[in-house]
Structure formats: structure tokens, C-alpha cells
């Protein structure tokens, strides 16, 4: 099958959906001629024009508010927040308004909107351009949270997110944009809330999100050489999340490592660890749960410090060996 990049997969999903439904439009900073800070929307303005590829001033709160207002009156906006760090400016509209509107109004509002935003470190952009804040949004009822790790998933999950009638926080990773993978040309949906087993294995389950899925895959290839067979579960959607697939994998392997880039304390890994420890798979565990997350520090600028601030392939290998007792 054709291989394209993660960024291209996202662009293709946007393009195909915009062709299908004229109520879909893009809104955010520098999406048009500039093509987005990471080039994701490049070229779309040529096909769809300024109305539907709508550049805004630097007004994150209003970007989300405008999306929300459009969503409840018949449109299907796809907003972009240029870096996830700046979503801090829009929390009020996301959390108090978009997430709660339907419930607060007795179920009568429909809020079909997507907020795309790139997270993650690794680009040398330091503390205010490198955060991974997905855990916050998993804590907010009314939102859905999606975090694709491959071009294939990015396309299918974005299409599903756009077609969903709820506010979806769609979190991309800057370092994944240029990674490639097989992606069908036609449109397809990947249902929200269904995990994917990225690799089958027997000795150990690694639950990883976003770029950590790729690192876990690399680690598992190394581990395989040493006779350790790793199963990799990618939840893909963090809210709702696919408890069943996670638990069944652990029941099979009896050991689990959870890996994400966000700070370990209070990260999404805590929720997964908690769910496991509350569930029947607790009895199947033959070693304590292991969490790998970012250090509890702001992301530093220096390349070496930056790298050390979040889990790398070697960290996953090391943790796996420790857990297996090798």
C-alpha cells in the first residue's frame, strides 16, 4: 500500500472530509498560506479558500469559542491550536462551555467540533512549546481525547473525530509528523474508544501512547533479540478508553509497563495503572505495574537534557528487562 507521512495523513483526512461535507471548516492561526506551523494544512487553502481555511488573529480563547458557537448552530469546525501549550488560554471555553453544554442544557445541544493540537518535546523549543497535557482532558466529562501514533491511525481517527457529535481533543505529536506508514487512499473510520494491539507478544504488555508507541516498537525489536516477547497496546483514544483490550492483554502476559511522554505524576498512565489495579487483571499480575513517564520538570532547552526528560527507547528496554528479571 501507499506510504505517506503522519502530517499528510492528517491533511488527507481534512481534505476528504471537507469535500464530503461543506459544513466542515478549519479555523486557527496561520493555517492558510503558511500552511500551519508544521505544514499540516499546507495547500488546503487553494482548494477550499479563505472561508473554510480560516486564519485567525492570535486569540486562542476566541478560536475555541468561535468553534463552539459554530458547532451548536450547524457547522462542524476543526480548530487548530498551534502548540498544545497554548490550549491553556482556551481552557475556559473547552472545559466550562464545550464539554458541559450538552449536559447542562438537558442533553439538547449538539457540539460537533474537533480541536487539533501538536504536543510533545524533541524540537528544542523548551518549556512553553513542548508540553503533553492530554491527562487534563481525560479528566473532563463531555470531552473525547484522541492521540494517534501512526499515519494510518491519524487518518482514520481524525475522520471519526470530525464525524463525532462531541468535542474531541485530537492530539498530534510534532516528531511524528514526518514519520511514514501505509495509509489507504479512501476514507475510513477508526472508532473512538477502541485500542489497537500494535504488536502481539507473550512476556510483557507495554501500553504506550503517541510517539511512545513508536519507541516501544523499536524497544520490542531489541528485546526480541534477547528472547523477550512484548505485546504493545496503543489505546489510541484516551477518553473513552478501551479498558477491555488493556486488561485482556495483561491477563495474558502478567506484566505491564505503561509509557507516555507527559510528566509521570498525574499523567494518563496513572489512570491506566489504577484501572488495572482495580480490575480482575490485578490477580494475574506477577510483578508490580511499571510506569514510565516524563520527569516532573519543565522541558529543558538543551538537547541532551531535553532527551533525558522523557522516555527513550533505551529506557523502555531497561524497564522491560528489569521487570522480566533479566
Amino acid at each position, binding site marked *: 500500500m501507499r506510504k505517506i507521512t503522519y502530517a499528510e495523513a492528517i491533511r488527507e483526512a481534512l481534505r476528504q472530509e471537507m469535500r464530503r461535507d461543506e459544513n466542515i471548516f478549519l479555523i486557527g492561526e496561520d493555517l492558510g498560506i503558511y500552511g500551519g506551523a508544521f505544514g499540516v494544512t499546507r495547500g488546503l487553502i487553494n482548494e477550499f479558500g479563505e472561508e473554510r481555511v480560516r486564519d485567525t488573529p492570535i486569540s486562542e480563547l476566541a478560536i475555541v469559542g468561535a468553534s463552539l458557537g459554530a458547532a451548536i448552530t*450547524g457547522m462542524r469546525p476543526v480548530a487548530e491550536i498551534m502548540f498544545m501549550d497554548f490550549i491553556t488560554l482556551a481552557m475556559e471555553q473547552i472545559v466550562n462551555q464545550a464539554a458541559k453544554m450538552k449536559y447542562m442544557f438537558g442533553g439538547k445541544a449538539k457540539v460537533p467540533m474537533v480541536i487539533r493540537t501538536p504536543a510533545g518535546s524533541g524540537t528544542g523549543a523548551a518549556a512553553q512549546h513542548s508540553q503533553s497535557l492530554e491527562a487534563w482532558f481525560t479528566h473532563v466529562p463531555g470531552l473525547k481525547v484522541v492521540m494517534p501514533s501512526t499515519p494510518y491511525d491519524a487518518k482514520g481517527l481524525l475522520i471519526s473525530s470530525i464525524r463525532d457529535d462531541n468535542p474531541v481533543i485530537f492530539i498530534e505529536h510534532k516528531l511524528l509528523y514526518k514519520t511514514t506508514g501505509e495509509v489507504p487512499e479512501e476514507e475510513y473510520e477508526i472508532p473512538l474508544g477502541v485500542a489497537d494491539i500494535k504488536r502481539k507478544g507473550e512476556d510483557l504488555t507495554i501500553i504506550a501512547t503517541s510517539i511512545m508507541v513508536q519507541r516501544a516498537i523499536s524497544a520490542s525489536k531489541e528485546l526480541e533479540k534477547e528472547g523477550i516477547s512484548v505485546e504493545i497496546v496503543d489505546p489510541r483514544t484516551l477518553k473513552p478508553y478501551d479498558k477491555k483490550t488493556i486488561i485482556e492483554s495483561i491477563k495474558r502476559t502478567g506484566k505491564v509497563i505503561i509509557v507516555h511522554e507527559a510528566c509521570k505524576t498525574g499523567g494518563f498512565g496513572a489512570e491506566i495503572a489504577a484501572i488495572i489495579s482495580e480490575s480482575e487483571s490485578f490477580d494475574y499480575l506477577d510483578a508490580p505495574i511499571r510506569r514510565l513517564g516524563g520527569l516532573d520538570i519543565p522541558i529543558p532547552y538543551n538537547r541532551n537534557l531535553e532527551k533525558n526528560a522523557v522516555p527513550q527507547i533505551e529506557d523502555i528496554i531497561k524497564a522491560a528487562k528489569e521487570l522480566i528479571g533479566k
Partner: protein
Amino acid sequence: MELSREKLIDMLGKMYKIRFFEEKVDYLFSLGLVHGTMHLSIGQEAVAVGAVSALKSDDYILSTHRGHGHCIAKGADINLMMAEFLGKETGYCRGRGGSMHIADIKSGNLGATGVVGGGIPISTGVGLSIKMRKTGQVVLCFFGDGAANLGAFHESLNLAAIWKLPVIFLCENNMYGMSMSVKKAVAIKDIAKRADSYGFPGEVVDGNDILAVYEFVLKAVKRARKGEGPSLIECKTYRWKGHSKSDQNLYRSKEEIGSWKKKCPIRRFKEKLISKDILTEEKVKVIEEDAKNIIEKAVDFANNSPEPSVEEIFEGVYS
């Protein structure tokens, strides 16, 4: 006056309904029958009714924590409002929203928010959607003087300006944001002047004169429908009651409150209609009685309505 007799009478009736609705819920609250707080707009009825009267029925409004008046002006069913106020299953929001979140999306009432200024960004999106769908509607966004100091105000008015969105930003300046006098919170005389920062008209209106409110909003509506963009209208008015139930009214004087009560917008409008021979004292009495009856019936309706069921507590979180 372009307004028909019928419409004028309807406007007065709505003012009474607002007044009586709020007096009633104030009373219910004092009996301990209400869980939560509420924000009364008694004294500000001319703004809600005057402004919404300049809209067509399929236009949109966005309301605030002090929103009973906006809802009634937009034609809300008082039964469903009262039921919501009392947290009943039959209420507009199935008892999940309460006083601060009454909404009726299908009638164009896009709801009240408890976050000051929270509706302003949303209104820009409604304006954008109107523009993109080319429906010719407009959206009227209510907010208070206090809200005009939030970042949301600035970002939204700027967005509406550059895209020439059909939004009417209506600032109900009742002189205070909770205990904060607008004189302390804002260093200029008129909030309306802030429209200059965005390049669209800003107007100051006597908010206790319903016809003036109507007139200025109508002008803004026409402008919006023509695609000329947003307007900011500041209606100077006053709330007679405390900010909410926790208010001891220490920050303003009895005299000040008393002087504004003398400027009652309902009495003023009523007297005007009588002086213009549109109504008589007797007819007004009938209108008043009708309004009171509607409120009483609404209380009965609400009281006889079931509570929401706990089994259904998850309903409405997601589509």
C-alpha cells in the same frame, strides 16, 4: 415608533412576566425551597425586552448568569423555566442546568452561562456560522459591565470586527460587577467607547427606556443583516436586588438604590403607553394579572413535575 400596538403590549407583558417571575423565585428562595443561588434582574427588564424585541424569532441570543429576563424576552415557556428553576425533569434542561443555565437551542436561545463573559466568544462562532450558512440571521449577545474587562471580550469583539460578523454585543451596565463599581473597574466613562478599538459602532443607551433600547438594537440588527458587521451597545441600568443570595449590599447606599427604583423601567413604559392612548390603567391591570397568573401556573406546573431520575444521571453527557 414603528412598533405595532400589539407588539408594544406584548413587550409590556413580557416585562411584567420577568418582574413577577423574579419576585416569585425570590420568594421561593426565601422559603428555602431552592437549592443554589440565583441572580435577579429586577430593574433591568427594559434591556432584555427592548433588545430581544428587535430580533426575529429565528435570531439567536446568548444569555448570562442574570438571564431570566433574556429567556422570557425570547419567548420562553414560563412553565419550563420554572420547572428548571426548581430542578425538575420537565424543565428546559431536565433539572441539570438550573437558574444559571436555561437554554432552548431550537428557539434560538443558546443558553445562559455562569461564567462571566463566557458567552461572548461563543457568539462570534454563531455569527460566523450564520455568515457561512448565509441564513441572514443575527445573534445578540448579552453580558454585564463586569464582563467587559475579561480577555474574552477583547478577543471576541476583535474577531467579530475583522470578519464583519452579524453580532450585537449588548452590555448591560448595571453599574456593578458584584461589589465592584464600574467606576473602579474601568477608567473611562463609557464601555461603549471600547468599540473604537475594533472599528465598529459603540452606542450608549438609557437602559431603562425600553424604546430607546429597541431602537438602538434595531439599528445594529439592520447593520448586521446588511453584512456590515457587529455593534456594541451599552445599556445603562441598575439591579435593584443584591448580586446574588450571598450579597449584603454593603458596597452601595440605600439612597442610590432608592433613586434607581424611582426610574422603574416598567412603570415608565406603562405610563408612556397610557399617555399615548395605547393602553388604559384598566388594561394594564389585566396585563399584570395575566402575567401573575402565568407565573402562578408555572409554579404549580413545576411543583407537580417529577424530579429527574437518578438512574438517568449519565444522560446527556455525550451525543
